[in-house]
């Protein structure tokens, strides 16, 4: 195993501190990793040059020297920002997203732009205008989506962390497919300033890492109130690693004896979960029992309506948000003799099929005669869905649920049935609708060496608790807590 490529951020910081390696050498090392391996998986739309990466990072920052890649819908100043779309092919962002600028203040090396589904619309990264990203665990399989590039880069040991974004599961699902930890934070915890909007009431930046501690470290860098985002919560930045080992230190054998874990029965027993995934999920539950957690099985009936609710609300908001791409001020502009033709030709040629179809659906569910039937009902259902979670958390600390029906599927699997592709969001989107946090956690490999994950869902602003419970689980999986999920061919 390549010790450096799959080292945790914690270990890398230690090596830098002890001067076992310099910051410059470490950056060169990861840039070489991309050069050597990224042609296999195509995780990056662009890898930046050495000098420009170094020039914007604060040498005194707590993450100085730690490289990561950012999904290409999050602004990095003076870098291209395409959202994997033709309509933004040559757009250069004139500003940093809050997340990007906070990383730069902390000294992190922003190494490039990660591939994604076009405008974050998809579950496989197949709708990217530019290229297809492969899952490092099986090059014929998808990495998941829409943050597939970010997930693939971390899974292949090209970077120790990456940012993605979630609207319906686009961090947790690729994390599960690639054997990673993927956080979807409480809505409003991470600023959306500089995140290109898909569905503004659902979007959140998410984090990929190979360990729980690393995930908490990255969150600590970027979470917290931002005046540039009026939907950001009034929460101060804090250190999410501070008490991460509180349970394991207090009781090595049954660290979770004071935790009640609720298994979402109608999710775990849902039709369509692959048998091997089902077994691995149940094995994870047994691990939690062994660690002392009280297990309760509960049903959340409103979850059965989550996908429909999510489809309506996300497409409605997307139709509104994507109306800004019109060829006037930036981006691709089609040839036309009149202004109206310019608008309609630009958007026809600039957007891919999936984006166009979602805009049409969005406008359908908002249009006169349909809005009440679809959009209003969806908003009401959303409220009840959130309420159902809140009631569950009165008796339960965290919820346990699958993330995906099974392992990463092969390319083109859903090309003739796009609804089935949409339903990849089934296990994840209820969390986005409720605005609550969830962490995708790898729990094992199938017999053909493909990762499976589960998720721990918590109430608003329970990230610290989620990390503590996940940490106890992770420590139990391996002797030293290091992620042993390393795909063949990238060691």
């Amino acid at each position, binding site marked *: 195993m390549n010790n450096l490529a799959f080292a945790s951020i914690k270990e890398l910081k230690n090596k830098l501190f002890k001067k076992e390696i310099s910051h410059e050498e470490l950056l060169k090392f990861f840039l070489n990793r991309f050069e050597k391996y990224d042609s296999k998986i195509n995780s990056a739309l662009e890898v930046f040059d050495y000098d420009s990466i170094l020039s914007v990072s604060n040498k005194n920052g707590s993450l100085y020297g730690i490289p990561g890649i950012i999904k290409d819908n999050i602004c990095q100043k003076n870098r291209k920002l395409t959202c994997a779309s033709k309509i933004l092919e040559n757009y250069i962002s*004139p500003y940093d997203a809050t997340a990007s600028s906070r990383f730069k203040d902390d000294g992190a090396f922003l190494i490039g732009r990660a591939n994604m589904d076009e405008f974050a619309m998809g579950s496989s990264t197949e709708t990217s205008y530019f290229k297809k990203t492969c899952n490092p665990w099986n090059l014929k399989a998808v990495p998941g989506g829409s943050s597939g590039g970010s997930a693939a880069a971390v899974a292949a040991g090209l970077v120790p962390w990456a940012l993605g974004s979630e609207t319906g599961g686009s961090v947790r699902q690729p994390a599960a497919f690639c054997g990673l930890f993927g956080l979807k934070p409480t809505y409003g915890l991470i600023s959306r300033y500089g995140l290109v909007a898909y569905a503004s009431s659902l979007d959140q930046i998410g984090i990929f890492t190979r360990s729980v501690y690393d995930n908490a470290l990255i969150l600590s860098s970027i979470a917290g109130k931002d005046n540039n985002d009026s*939907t950001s919560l009034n929460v101060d930045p804090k250190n999410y690693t501070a008490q991460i080992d509180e349970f394991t230190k207090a009781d090595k054998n049954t660290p979770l004896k004071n935790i009640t874990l609720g298994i979402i029965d109608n999710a775990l027993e849902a039709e369509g979960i692959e048998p091997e995934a089902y077994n691995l999920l149940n094995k994870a539950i047994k691990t939690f029992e062994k660690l002392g957690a009280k297990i309760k099985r509960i049903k959340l009936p409103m979850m059965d309506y989550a996908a429909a609710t999510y489809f309506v609300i996300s497409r409605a908001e997307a139709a509104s948000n994507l109306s800004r791409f019109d060829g*006037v*001020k930036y981006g691709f502009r089609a040839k036309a003799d*009149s202004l109206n033709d310019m608008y309609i030709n630009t958007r026809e040629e600039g957007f891919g099929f999936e984006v166009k179809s979602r*805009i049409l659906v969005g406008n*359908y569910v908002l249009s006169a005669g349909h809005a009440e039937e679809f959009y209003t009902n969806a*908003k009401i259902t959303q409220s009840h869905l959130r309420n159902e979670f809140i009631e569950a958390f009165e008796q339960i600390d965290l919820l346990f649920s699958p993330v995906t029906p099974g392992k990463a599927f092969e390319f083109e699997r859903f090309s003739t049935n796009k609804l089935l592709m949409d339903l990849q969001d089934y296990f994840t989107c209820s969390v986005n609708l409720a605005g609550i946090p969830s962490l995708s956690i790898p729990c094992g490999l199938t017999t053909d060496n493909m990762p499976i994950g589960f998720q721990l869902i918590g109430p608003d602003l329970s990230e610290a608790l989620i990390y503590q419970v996940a940490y106890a689980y992770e420590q139990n999986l391996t002797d030293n807590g290091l992620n042993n999920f390393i795909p063949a061919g990238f060691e």
Partner: protein
Amino acid sequence: MKITKEEVLKLGQISMIHISDSEIPSLIERLESLLNYVCCLKELSSQRSLKEMPHNINTLREDSVQQVNPTPIIKLAPESESNYFVVPAILKDHK
């Protein structure tokens, strides 16, 4: 439920996206399958009288004027003239 070609073209108009004839069949299929799936929301609300509950609350801030340097923004324009974005005329025959 069935979606007609006319509805797709009307949606294209509302969405400001030109729809070519070749795209219509696949768009119809896409719309129909999704809308048929989400019809369950209508059934849910008629089975149970779900009252609307507040969730998202709007936040306001003080209106403050900021000076922004237009140069980096104008540089991104497909066509510009000093600090103006240039676009085709609104009417085809307008001179």
